[in-house]
């Protein structure tokens, strides 16, 4: 008669012991159940993929200093040291007004061009079920080249100005990120009447992570045909090897685009991969925190 009682007690005791180990799963379950979809961060490492902008913006109060450097064309021969004797440079400053609104200015040596842009993060991708599947950023840029052409004195500021608007759709997957960027480009002056002032293009970009701090990037900018006819233009195709160390992002770049300004490289790339018109170069991004709350020392 005592036997079932013993069994019963034993069973109860084991139930109590089992409860002990479930304390952890209890907190784990509550944590999982209460977790809301969170915004995905780090889709791309910087605000520039290579030339193309990414969906990323600069954090509020932070300043990004961007150096984009391209040597000359690889096919320019031994006399030009395969392009290394020449250089095109764009220096840029990008500032985060809020976490979702970034403004930037740049100056590049190509046609002595000034450019400025503003960029809004409209939606952020969220992880977890039911959240936003992609990130959406809107970017508007204006450029003005100031190089003097003595025989073209009619070139006033208006003629020298171009605009580009881009809608940047991006998604981060486990080890890679993709973006699709439709662009509308307006150049106030084009060489002939057959050329279009208003152009559309579609760009695609990818980042593949190979280690925690290294990735391979690629981008392709497709300009729809019959928009630029007076000069032979090519679609800009670029690859980069990207490395990150602390507040720096460093990229080694191979591209057929010489310019780094959207109004120029998307619609005005005149060299091609096919005949070796490739530019070797690098991008360096450095982040500075300017806000007082970021600078403040830790107190505890």
């Amino acid at each position, binding site marked *: 008669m005592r036997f079932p009682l013993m069994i019963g007690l034993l069973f109860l005791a084991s139930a109590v012991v089992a409860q002990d180990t479930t304390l952890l799963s*209890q907190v*784990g379950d509550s944590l999982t159940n209460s977790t809301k979809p969170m915004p995905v961060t780090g889709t791309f490492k910087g605000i520039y993929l290579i030339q193309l902008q990414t969906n990323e913006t600069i954090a509020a109060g932070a300043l990004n200093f961007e150096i984009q450097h391209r040597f000359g064309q690889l096919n320019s021969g031994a006399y030009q040291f395969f392009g290394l004797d020449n250089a095109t440079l764009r220096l840029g400053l990008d500032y985060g007004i809020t976490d979702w609104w970034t403004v930037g200015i740049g100056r590049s040596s190509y046609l002595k061009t000034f450019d400025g842009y503003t960029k809004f993060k409209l939606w952020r991708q969220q992880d977890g079920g039911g959240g936003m599947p992609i990130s959406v950023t809107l970017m508007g840029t204006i450029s003005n080249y100031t190089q003097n052409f003595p025989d073209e004195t009619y070139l006033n500021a208006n003629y020298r100005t171009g605009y580009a608007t881009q809608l940047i759709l991006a998604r981060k997957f486990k080890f890679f990120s993709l973006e699709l960027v439709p662009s509308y480009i307006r150049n106030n002056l084009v060489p002939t009447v057959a050329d279009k002032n208003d152009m559309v293009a579609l760009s695609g970009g990818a980042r593949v992570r190979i280690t*925690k701090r290294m990735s391979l990037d690629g981008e392709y900018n497709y300009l729809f045909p019959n928009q630029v006819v007076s000069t032979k233009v090519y679609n800009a195709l670029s690859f980069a090897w990207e490395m990150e160390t602390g507040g720096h992002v460093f990229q080694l770049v191979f591209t057929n685009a010489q310019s780094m300004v959207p109004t120029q490289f998307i619609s005005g790339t005149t060299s091609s991969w096919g005949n070796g018109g490739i530019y070797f170069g690098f991008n360096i991004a450095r982040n500075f925190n300017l806000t007082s709350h970021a600078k403040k020392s830790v107190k505890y």
Partner: protein
Amino acid sequence: MKKTLLAAACLILTLVKGYGQQYMTRNGFVGFYSKTPAEDIKAETRQGFAIIDEGKKNLAFAVLIKGFTFPKELMQEHFNENYMESDKYPKATFNGSFAGDLAPGRDGVYHVTVKGNLTMHGVTKPVEMPATIERKGNQLIGHAVFHISPEEFNVSIPSLVREKIEKSLEVHVDIQCDQK
């Protein structure tokens, strides 16, 4: 016979329930800090889940890695992407027990020793720390300060930035648990 068994079971169950009073919180505080000449690091979250089982002297804790906020956003991104790999290892957990007695039904601060397993970044390590548990009405308030080293949890830090992060980070935990 069946009645005896049932009575015994009921008795034991009520005893267990009464004895194993649990306290819980959904907004436990965790912060970790590092101070070096090169850079100060501060990260805090108030989204920790904790349960203290007073009777069995057990406690458990879980916190989302992505819930930690830093004053510098880029630092937060690096923390999630490069160091803690929060997509792969989304949470940090602690499971353990405490040694020391809490006088039943009397408010006061009690010094205890907490011992258990800390799991984060896919690595589980035994830890032991002094802590205090304060009884305040229907609440148990736990407080602990301890140190962890990133390398112990397989968090690799590149030599270039090693001097910007302390070898052992100070961790503060504050949990205000209400009776369940």
